[in-house]
């Protein structure tokens, strides 16, 4: 993995090859307001095309498969794949029932969407790190960051949407006065109103931020570890040393892959459950 790109980089800049390799992999395909040298976005009005492409691709895949399954449901003799989808649905529905007070028909589909989308976007991390960028460079695309959830834009987009829903339902269920009261009197009672406002505001803002940063951090770190493992075989594939380094890389890669499979599932699950919990808190009258 990464041999070709890396060796090219190593030829070009000697010792700086490793840094450049990682840097290259962590750079989005940016259009719009981008820095021409570093290829990083330099302003708000820039688009990470790779993030958008894979995000929408996976979303389309979910819609397509969901439509296929949803339009050929058989209640009496479920096919194998229908069973599988039913299992996921049942799992999500159980989570919602266990953590969400009351009833809101939006919560369960929202939770399912988050779980599926996040899981599948995370799953892109398990595709060998150099495979898609190499194919892309063959097509003349210089930068390609495959995993949308390693882009803070994606995770923040989801967590801000969830946050908007939290605010909306807080206002709807508690009423504007009730919501304001929560800010005024929440942690310490009515004698510490200024402190309360600061505390509750931080608490509320921490919700979307922690959601976004947790997912982003985990996946970014995971991606980075894959890159580092890919470097093991890359830097030292000279002569007999390859006999040692190459198996090590394979073993480490496999180990991290299996561990990461757990991580990506867990992160998707955590994002889903926390969304349900936050929305559940928005739906309770008394804080």
């Amino acid at each position, binding site marked *: 993995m990464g041999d070709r790109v890396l060796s090219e980089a190593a030829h070009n800049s000697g010792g700086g090859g490793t840094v450049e390799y990682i840097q290259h992999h962590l750079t989005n395909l940016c259009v719009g307001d981008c820095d021409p040298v570093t290829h990083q976005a*330099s302003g708000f009005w820039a688009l990470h095309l790779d993030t*958008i492409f894979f995000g929408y691709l996976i979303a389309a895949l979910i819609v397509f498969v969901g439509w296929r399954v949803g339009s050929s449901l058989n209640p009496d003799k479920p096919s194998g794949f229908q069973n599988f989808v039913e299992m996921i*649905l049942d799992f999500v529905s159980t989570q919602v029932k266990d953590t969400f007070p009351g009833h809101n028909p939006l919560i369960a589909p929202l939770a399912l969407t988050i779980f599926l989308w996040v899981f599948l976007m995370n799953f892109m991390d398990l595709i060998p790190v150099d495979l898609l960028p190499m194919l892309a460079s063959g097509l003349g695309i210089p930068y390609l960051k495959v995993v949308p959830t390693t882009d803070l834009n994606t995770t923040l987009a*989801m967590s*801000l*949407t969830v946050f908007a829903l939290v605010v909306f339902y807080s206002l709807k269920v508690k009423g504007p006065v009730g919501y304001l009261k929560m800010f005024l009197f929440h942690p310490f009672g009515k004698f510490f109103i200024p402190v309360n406002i600061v505390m509750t505001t931080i608490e509320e803002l921490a919700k979307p931020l922690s959601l976004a940063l947790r997912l982003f951090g985990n996946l970014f770190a995971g991606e980075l570890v894959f890159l580092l493992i890919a470097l093991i075989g890359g830097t030292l594939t000279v002569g007999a040393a390859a006999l040692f380094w190459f198996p090590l890389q394979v073993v480490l890669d496999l180990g991290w892959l299996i561990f990461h499979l757990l991580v990506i599932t867990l992160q998707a699950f955590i994002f889903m459950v926390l969304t349900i919990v936050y929305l559940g808190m928005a739906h309770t009258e008394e804080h």
Partner: protein
Amino acid sequence: MNITATLIAQMIAFVLLIWFVNKVLWGPMSAMLAERQKRIADGLAAAEKGKHDLELAEKRAKEELQTAKAKAAEIMAQAEKRANAIVDEARVNARAEGERQLAAAQAEIERETNRAKEQLRGQVASVAMAGAARILKREIDAKSHGEVLNDVIAQI
């Protein structure tokens, strides 16, 4: 790692995806699951009802059987009584018939006896007259001795 307009694009994707998932997957599937659940519940309820019905039917069958047995026993008892009555009646009839026939026979016998007696009386009278005539060597005039003859006949 700047925040860019990608954020907005991904937000749109997210909202659209929620809408689509709800529309094409969650909606139909949860409706189907609810239907299946209802069907299973109905099936179980029907099974329960069937079981209950069976129990009721068994109970009723038992009751019917008992009634039938009781009725049969009653009928048998009645039949026995009736048979006894018939036998008794037959016996009584037979006895009565026997007595009647006996009486008739006795009457017949008596009648025959009387008839024989009358006959005998007549014959005895004639024999006695003949005997007397022989003894007297002359004929007895029935007319002139009628009174005597009748007296004799009455004595026999």
